[in-house]
């Protein structure tokens, strides 16, 4: 079947779009590449904004509503830009019974944000995870991509304090 409608051109000269396009090409611009492509966008841009969703949806010929539906269905995708630092609190069962709930409250209080939000100055995002599989070191956190085990109140406070500008 001949392809009639043209694929959209890259949104900007930003090199990262070429990587995104590369992911789609690897999957032959098939519709089922939607999730894989959104993973690539988030990996390189940190989040999914409207232009990127439009670009991916148009390139893969899926309705924008479907792209938006997928982006909001999966917890891993975020539509908001992340802060400079990310503090991830694991709320898995093992962490929870070892006090992750209280630690989350501590983090919320000291950053003055709720879970899922970013501080007003854009410095720290506070996010939660269902389980990061580091149950042997509960309660576990991921600070800027680095897993930390057996975290207590003091360790958490000093880590967050160290991130202050």
């Amino acid at each position: 079947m001949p392809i009639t409608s043209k694929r959209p051109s890259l949104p900007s000269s930003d090199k990262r779009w070429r990587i995104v396009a590369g992911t789609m090409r690897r999957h032959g611009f098939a519709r089922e590449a939607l999730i894989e492509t959104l993973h690539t966008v988030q990996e390189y841009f940190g989040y999914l904004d409207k232009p990127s969703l439009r670009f991916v949806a148009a390139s893969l010929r899926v309705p924008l509503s479907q792209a938006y539906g997928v982006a909001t269905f999966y917890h891993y995708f975020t539509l908001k830009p992340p802060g400079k630092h990310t503090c991830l609190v694991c709320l898995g069962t093992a962490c929870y019974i070892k006090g992750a709930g209280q630690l989350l409250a501590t983090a919320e209080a000291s950053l003055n944000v709720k879970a899922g939000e970013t501080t007003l100055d854009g410095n720290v995002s506070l996010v939660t995870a269902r389980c990061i599989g580091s149950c042997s070191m509960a309660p576990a956190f991921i600070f800027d991509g680095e897993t930390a085990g057996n975290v207590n109140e003091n360790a958490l406070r000093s880590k967050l304090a160290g991130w202050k500008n």
Partner: protein
Amino acid sequence: MTLDELEQIANEVQAAKEKSPRALNVCVAAGCLSLHSDAIKSALEKEVQRTGVNCRVAGTGCMGLCSLGPLVNREPDGQLLKNVAEADAAEIVEKLESVPPERLLCSREQPFFQRQTAVVLENSGRINPEKIEEYIAAEGYQALVRALTEMAPAQIVQEVSKSGLRGRGGAGYPTGLKWGTVAKTIGTTKYVICNADEGDPGAFMDRSVLESDPHRVLEGMIVAGYAVGASQGYIYVRAEYPLAIKRLQAAIRDARRLGFLGSQICNAKFSFDIEIRIGGGAFVCGEETALIASIEGRRGTPRPRPPFPAQSGLWQMPTLINNVESFANIPTILRRGGEWYASLGTKKSKGTKVFALCGKVRNVGLIEVPMGTPLRQIIFEIGGGIPDGHRFKAVQTGGPSGGCIPEQSLDLPVDYESLKEVGSIMGSGGMIVMDDSACMVNVARYFMEFCMSESCGKCIPCRAGTAQMFELLTRMTSGTATPQDLELLEDLCDMVSSTSLCGLGQSAPNPVLSTLRYFREEYTEHIVDKHCRAGVCECNHLAEVSA
């Protein structure tokens, strides 16, 4: 690749080992790695280089006893070193030929190691997961080569059936039966999917297997592809497991390089390839029809069964879906025979099961025991009991679909049926021990919150029912509930479990039902006396104010 060629690779690895028999194997699986075992590894490497001793330093997978990590295994004497720090590197290398420092010594003579039977974990912590040659030296890919050159697909299905292996994802469906159904279904294109969307909070078995011995899972999948007549496989793995993804990618690359993946594998008329699909952090995608929807690039919502994926799965083609641990059992089953596997375990639950033992227990880590091992033995002998002078209260199995098992049921042999009898399920293998500092109403509320926010929203009983149940449980923990609320909660449990579309909703009431069954008095205390005996819930505070 032939058996002779495999043997040659194995011999080369062996010869290299004999040339330099001393080795320090550092655990670089997730647990120890987050305690910076990679830095310890490079410290040891530097120290070996500096002193010029003949000793290999390598990274391996999980050694099991994660709570004493970072762990280092010494060859050839097999001594295990615990709580190793970077600063210990010099001393460890210096004492390579003598007894290691006392403070680092971790005895293998303790029940934690002695009470285990390793099948799935047989290579875990012993081989370098990033070297296919080491897997081959540990008899890896022999089962595949034998299967492709000496066995007909039907024979393989028969062998798996004989082993009595049941789905390790939790439901316990006979694996051989599933394979047989897919094999018999007529279709030109079939798929094999490995479910590595390990979503149960408190479970990290699949993660460890993928990080410690990824080739075992690939081998199981390729054999399955041959047995059912599929030529494409997918591994659906959580985005939260970056290390597992990295090791899988490397393993797939190496398997292609040696011709275990690709066309005409082992010169047989059989082609098979595997691709990785990364999940998006949706718990419901552990359900097979939701997982298939996700691989197809859509929202992960389940659909009614039948048709089962075996008849109409990925892109409406016959599809075999098994869990990581199920596939990981296959190479050993084929190598040692279905009968041997069936000799382990109980009458209805054969073989071994890997558990992630965590929570309030002394020895936290990854264990593998024969089916039928009593819970008491797992928690008090292997797990070493409850630390800090607390008392055992309950053990939670099966994640949000499971239940809490109390002290009086601890002598229960762990298998699919008996766990169901006491109101829990086997689940994928998370085992979270709770002591008297845990409030069971709060635990039930925790799981309900989980199910509520993980409900995909497709069917109303689950979407609305879990939200209502969560609200009722919140009233209880905050001290504003009435006795009628408890009645309503029980009604809702019945409604949600009997009318939900998929397993998530059907099993969402389990944590409530099981805590009600064994800890009903705690519910009454929260509702009538506004008292939480564990001191966890807000209702205590309320009672103080009004007093």
